[in-house]
């Protein structure tokens, strides 16, 4: 039944250093308990390999009787000569504790051991988990002075280039986007996937210095396309700026949040919004709403923008899209040139702005954006 085999196998790549630390931690507890419990006790990992045991000679053995299905269950399960109970904090249990014997006492022991090992694991993870640390950094939950101390403690390279992305899942389905992203970026020493809330997931990715922004967009594109093509999950990605120090990660994360929020207002047809490419929208987003109201009142003193009907607004949009070219716009709108000229005259009468003039057109364009901003009332970060 038992065979020596290498740890790892098909299991996803994890932080090897973290795993080794966990193994030592479990071995310490098992060692302390072996005198109290006069049976062989130990811990197996998700590949059914013994990673800690009161009988040191058995460490490294694989138990072929323990199936992956059994390991992922939360109940006590038994093989011919041992009793097991899974524990761990990931979506599925990562480890199982075992006690030799299949009697009621063995069941009691494994349950007790699972509780204590799980608690110590959670405590250890919270204290030393790099993911948790990064989460605290990007959410500004750590004092600036502590960032370097803690990163030193975790052997964390604090001065490499990184970028923050915020992935917002806009329609949920049965598949966990978090799990998919963890598999897309499995290097847990360099990339961190952090659940922010029910719909938002942050990715902190280590990148090459001086990386081209197109490559970052491409990376975001591959996230969007993989989630939608493989799992029918629609998402939007906000991209912050590249930072070279860990203390600036919180800024990059905030920028990613702003990018998504501004994108929702001004750039509704795109799924990837980069903070670096927000243009005039970023300026408007920073304006106080009172100032925006004043601007709209000033521009539309002769008549409200609300008095323009949907068709007129559509005409204006097309006119802007076609670089204020009357002939081209009328062709695109399938209307006679004179009809378009009549509509533009009507707009001039209502608003006092002649959209064929560049100065008036730009004022109108900005006013439309300000109006959009006010009516969407985006969250400020």
């Amino acid at each position, binding site marked *: 039944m038992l065979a020596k085999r290498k740890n790892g196998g098909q299991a996803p790549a994890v932080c090897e250093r973290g795993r080794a630390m966990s193994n030592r931690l479990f071995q310490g507890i098992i060692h302390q308990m072996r005198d109290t419990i006069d049976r062989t006790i130990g811990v197996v990992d998700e590949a059914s390999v013994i990673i800690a045991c009161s009988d040191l000679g058995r460490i490294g053995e694989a138990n072929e009787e323990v199936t992956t299905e059994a390991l992922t269950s939360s109940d006590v399960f038994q093989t011919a000569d041992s009793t097991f109970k899974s524990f761990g904090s990931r979506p599925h249990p990562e480890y199982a504790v075992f006690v030799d014997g299949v009697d009621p006492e063995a069941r009691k022991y494994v349950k007790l051991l699972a509780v204590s090992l799980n608690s110590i694991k959670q405590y250890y993870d919270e204290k030393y988990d790099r993911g948790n640390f990064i989460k605290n950094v990007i959410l500004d939950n750590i004092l600036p002075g502590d960032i370097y101390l803690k990163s030193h403690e975790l052997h964390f390279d604090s001065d490499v280039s990184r970028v923050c992305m915020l992935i917002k899942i806009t329609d949920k389905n049965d*598949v966990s986007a978090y799990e*998919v992203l963890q598999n897309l970026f499995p290097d847990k020493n360099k990339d961190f996937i952090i659940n922010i809330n029910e719909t938002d997931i942050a990715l902190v990715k280590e990148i090459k210095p001086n990386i081209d922004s197109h490559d970052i967009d491409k990376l975001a594109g591959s996230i969007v*396309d993989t989630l939608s093509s*493989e799992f029918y999950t629609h998402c939007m990605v906000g991209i912050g700026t590249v930072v070279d120090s860990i203390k600036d990660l919180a800024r990059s994360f905030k920028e990613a949040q702003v990018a998504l929020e501004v994108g929702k207002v001004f750039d509704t047809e795109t799924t990837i919004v980069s903070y670096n490419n927000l243009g005039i929208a970023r300026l408007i987003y920073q304006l106080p709403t009172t100032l925006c109201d004043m601007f709209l009142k000033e521009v539309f003193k002769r008549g409200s923008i609300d008095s323009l009907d949907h068709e007129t607004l*559509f005409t204006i949009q097309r006119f802007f899209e076609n670089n204020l070219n009357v002939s081209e716009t009328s062709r695109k709108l399938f209307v006679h040139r004179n009809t378009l000229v009549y509509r533009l005259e009507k707009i001039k009468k209502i608003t006092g702005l002649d959209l064929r003039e560049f100065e008036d057109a730009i004022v109108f364009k900005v006013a439309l954006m300000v109006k959009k901003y006010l009516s969407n009332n985006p969250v400020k970060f």
Partner: protein
Amino acid sequence: MASVTLKNIKKVYPGGVTAVSDFNLEIADKEFIILVGPSGCGKSTTLRMIAGLEEITDGELYIGDTLANGVAPKDRDIAMVFQRYALYPHMNVFENMAFGLKLRKLPKEEIRKRVEAAAKRLDIFYLLDRKPKELSGGQQQRVALGRAIVRDPQVFLLDEPLSNLDAKLRTQMRTEIAKLHKTLGTTFIYVTHDQTEAMTMGDRIVVMKDSLIQQVDTPKNLYEKPVNQFVAGFMGSPQMNFIDAVLGKSGEGYTLSFGGCVMPIPGHKAQGAELEALAGQTVVLGIRPEDVHDEESFLQKAGGAHVECTVEVAELMGAETYLYLTCEGGSLTARVPSDTPAKPGDKRPVAFDLEKIHIFNKETENAVLN
């Protein structure tokens, strides 16, 4: 397998931008249809609406006989391959192809069967144990296709799946995908901006521009009988030559004059009330580069209908040469046999194959004669 029907489909984004207007199309079961057009014409949005990744503003979408507007993407029985696919770097090819099915909790044995069958079909069975970094670009592309095939869908949606590949690999994968369509016998909807891809792969092509369908037809018909100047210019490389000319009428026949040149339109082509209405007006003469000849034998056959040109550039492409010419103040491209003596700076006559000319209304840009 299923047909796909789009009835008066419209997509307007919340900001008011219209991405797709009044899109009507019936895609037959097992058909390979291509949506082609320049960037921003609405082709990808149309595909994403079929996939359910974009809400349909107006109109009806049927997959088979089912109205699919409100059906969740995962329940539409479709599979998608996009341009910017990513493989899971720590998983081998088998695991990459199986991952989606595993998350959908399919039985292990079923997953194994499907992955192995897809791998055999794509000729990547021997790569099942390899990691993505050990694969070439083409092999990675096959794995991405494999991830879609294992789902055994009714309809495949492909959005520029080859644009990440280099030119040589793209040509190779084009053939592979066309072959795959034949062996799978499933409906394929393929989006591209590359007219060569469109011409070589599809049963029918939908040409789009500015959110509107311009023409839906077979590749041959699109090439030979474009409905307007946009389609004529978009399909074909190098693109069709367009020359402003005056349409003249002499007796029963018609002529085209530009510069000092007058060309008779063959009698059997020059028919129809629209042509009659345009007599005396400026129209746009369209002629494809391969229908512009500089061979001596053709010039003799063409009689006096020559155009005197200056050769600006001669590009030898191997089997043929592209001549970039200036004539009568305009420019012209000719695709001539590679043994042409033409050199840059030469002044030489060329003749048009008048059987192959197209005439477009200068104002509406619609075809009057094909």
